[in-house]
């Protein structure tokens, strides 16, 4: 039986009986195909992405597409800072076959110096790197010329360039970006995330050897441009402010100056300017730093407004109350004096403010008390950063009442012994102009999204500091300061101006208010608003280090005239109409 079975099995696979062999082959083929299909399935599914990516890496290159940085507009939609198309030329030294010829060609088109050409040639010959910048952010036309040459190993890519179309107008506020378009100062830094946008990706196929295959570029991920900012700045007013400051600093021979123009009701900053004299060239120009918010100085007599307003609001004094005011008096072992010698007089708060008496305002502070005075100073926004939160903004220095030492306890009443930034001081006086309500300063009015939609920023925060009645009373005092006091140089045609001058001392590195030559160093200012009957604009002018030996050191001479010079431009640009009833200096 076994033999028959064996014979039968042999017969089944013998020649001439192919059926079973065919079945066997078929089964083998099916098994093989199933295995192949399984492998293909695995490659396409579980390992698909990895393998596709690995394959793509071999024949494609990915390049980041820079998102267009947002534009910064002024309040009227004029460009203050914008990005424009430009080209950047790079090389891959490893691909360059003729360094000398390539370097010479680039030199002729780009106008490179011989030293730069030699440096390029050296880099190309070394072939130790695959990427090198030749020139960044050059004009597009030149970039196109180089691209048309089709030089091996030379690439021309689009890279935006940041420009200020108005030159350096507003540079202090705008700040700047670095060569990579990253904000490094000012608004550019503060709103860098918003302005930057989201970069995209471009892929291109490369041939063996690394050369790009023309026409294979495709955008894998489109860049999303950054949002645009609409500032509250008015470019024309900004320019006029800067020019007025430059003229005055040149005329006085001062070190620098700041100017702030603020919308009284909204707190919107219409202009914020800082100019400085270059220590190298002596030329006065718009500063790269925003010293109006970064630097803090003793405000001098402008601070008397805060002391008087606080005392009136608290009921510590009344408008009719008079004080005995000698020209000098001893406080805490220090003999303190008014700016000018005068006989002992009995003055009320208005007269003390008009004559800017240090002695008188210290007497007023005695009525309200140091602690309460300190509370009001803080409520006026002194001693803390403003709502601008500008990069590098100073908090100023307002010591706690218990930390005040010696005569500091009383000199803070007239602006000595504490420090404030120009924006703090402007906002504090603006509180008086705004009928006692502090309104936070504001620089950004709106943003423009990727689809062109405008989003307004929130209105400035406000809080009441003093009553409207008290504020209007102090306004009337400040009108008199301009009409018959220390700020007569701030008067303008057809409008009644209210304001206060200040002449502060600048502490020196030697711990005194005197420089190494024994001269006082001054910081003079004027803060005013108009029309006094319905204030619409508050304007601060401060002059840094006017010469000590001239009358130009006083706020009345250094700062008030700039106010008067600038006001007509502001009136014109803001279309401010004179009030129907103008009190003027005669009708006050």
């Amino acid at each position, binding site marked *: 039986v076994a033999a028959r079975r064996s014979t039968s099995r042999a017969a089944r696979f013998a020649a001439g009986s192919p059926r079973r062999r065919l079945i066997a082959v078929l089964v083998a083929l099916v098994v093989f195909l199933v295995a192949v299909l399984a492998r293909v399935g695995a490659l396409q599914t579980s390992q698909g992405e990895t393998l596709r990516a690995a394959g793509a890496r071999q024949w494609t290159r990915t390049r980041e597409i820079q998102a267009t940085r947002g*534009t910064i*507009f002024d309040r*009227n*939609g*004029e*460009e203050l800072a*914008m990005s*424009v*198309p430009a080209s950047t030329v790079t090389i891959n030294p490893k691909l360059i076959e003729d360094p000398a010829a390539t370097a010479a060609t680039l030199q002729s088109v780009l106008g490179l110096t011989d030293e730069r050409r030699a440096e390029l040639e050296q880099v190309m010959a070394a072939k130790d790197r695959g990427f090198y910048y030749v020139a960044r952010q050059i004009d*597009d036309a030149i970039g196109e010329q180089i691209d048309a040459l089709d030089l091996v190993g030379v690439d021309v890519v689009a890279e935006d360039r940041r*420009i200020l*179309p*108005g*030159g*350096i*107008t507003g540079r202090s506020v705008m700040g700047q970006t670095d060569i990579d378009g990253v904000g490094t100062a000012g608004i550019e830094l503060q709103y860098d995330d918003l302005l930057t946008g989201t970069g995209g990706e471009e892929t291109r196929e490369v041939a063996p050897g690394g050369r790009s295959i023309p026409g294979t570029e495709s955008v894998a991920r489109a860049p999303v*441009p950054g949002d*645009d900012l*609409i500032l509250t700045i008015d*470019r*024309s007013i*900004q*320019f*006029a402010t800067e*020019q007025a400051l430059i003229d005055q600093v040149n005329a006085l021979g001062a070190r620098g100056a700041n100017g702030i123009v603020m919308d009284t009701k909204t707190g919107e900053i219409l202009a914020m300017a800082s100019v400085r004299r270059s220590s190298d060239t002596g030329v006065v120009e718009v500063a790269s730093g925003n010293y109006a918010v970064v630097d803090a100085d003793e405000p001098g007599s402008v601070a008397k407004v805060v002391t008087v307003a606080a005392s009136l609001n608290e009921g510590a004094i009344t408008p009719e109350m008079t004080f005995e005011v000698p020209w000098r008096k001893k406080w805490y072992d220090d003999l303190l004096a008014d700016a000018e010698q005068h006989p002992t007089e009995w003055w009320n708060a208005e007269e003390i403010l008009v004559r800017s008496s240090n002695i008188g305002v210290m007497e007023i502070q005695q009525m309200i008390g140091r602690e309460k005075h300190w509370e009001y100073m803080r409520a006026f926004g002194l001693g803390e950063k403003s709502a601008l939160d500008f990069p590098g903004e100073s908090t100023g220095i307002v010591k706690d009442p218990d930390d005040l030492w010696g005569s500091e306890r009383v000199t803070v009443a007239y602006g000595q012994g504490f420090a404030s930034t120009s924006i703090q001081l402007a906002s504090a006086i603006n509180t008086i102009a705004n009928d006692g309500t502090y309104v936070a300063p504001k620089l950004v009015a709106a943003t*423009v*999204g*990727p*689809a*062109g*939609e*405008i989003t307004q920023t929130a209105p400035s925060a406000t809080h009441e500091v003093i009553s409207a009645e008290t504020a209007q009373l102090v306004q009337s005092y400040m009108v008199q300061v301009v009409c018959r006091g220390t700020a007569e140089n701030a008067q*303008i*045609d057809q409008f009644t101006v209210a304001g206060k001058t200040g002449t502060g001392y600048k502490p020196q590195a030697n711990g005194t208010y005197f420089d190494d030559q024994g001269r006082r160093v001054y910081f003079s200012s004027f803060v005013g608003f108009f029309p006094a009957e319905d204030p619409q604009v508050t304007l601060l002018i401060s002059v840094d280090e006017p010469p000590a030996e001239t009358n130009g050191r006083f706020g009345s001479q250094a700062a008030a005239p700039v106010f008067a010079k600038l006001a*007509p431009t502001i009136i014109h640009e803001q279309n401010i109409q004179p009030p129907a009833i103008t009190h003027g200096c005669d009708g006050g």
Partner: protein
Amino acid sequence: VTAPLRTSTNAGAGPARTRAVTTRAHAVRTGDGPVSPAVGNVRPARAVQLRIVPRRRRAAGFAVFLSVLVAAVMLGTAVLHTQLAERQLEIDRVERAVDEAQQRFDVLRRQRAELRAPTHLAAEASRLGMVPSGGDGDFVAVDAWTMAQAIAASGSAPTPDDALRALEPLDQYRLVKQVDGAGAVESPIAGNDP
């Protein structure tokens, strides 16, 4: 009528299987009863000529139909692909045109911004010998009719075609950004269709 029987034999030793080939006329209906095969001398009123369609011809017909169908589908696909390619070319051309227009817009926007900058205006005014008014100048009222005549003579009166030019820089910029950002185009010009 019963069709002839075709007999097939299995290769093995199994029983023979038969399959009846029938026609539509293979049965007659008698009264209300069930259909029963025609038997005896019952004949149909008219003889029906029946024939068996060769399977090969049916297959050939199907093959022809299939070929035509495949050819039609291929032709359709080719036409579709051609149209897609044409559309893509058109899209590429339009996208290039948009890119070029965008770049031109950026360049012109820069030029305008520089020309309108106060620094430039002040420099040009000085070059032309202009000086600040000093704040004591008088404004002269212009008669409306005179102004209208001047506008008409200079041809500078705005027309609907000039609407975009009449927009402020920010509005123009936003309009272009709307297009570029694939947002719905909303013209800021009142009464002007986008």
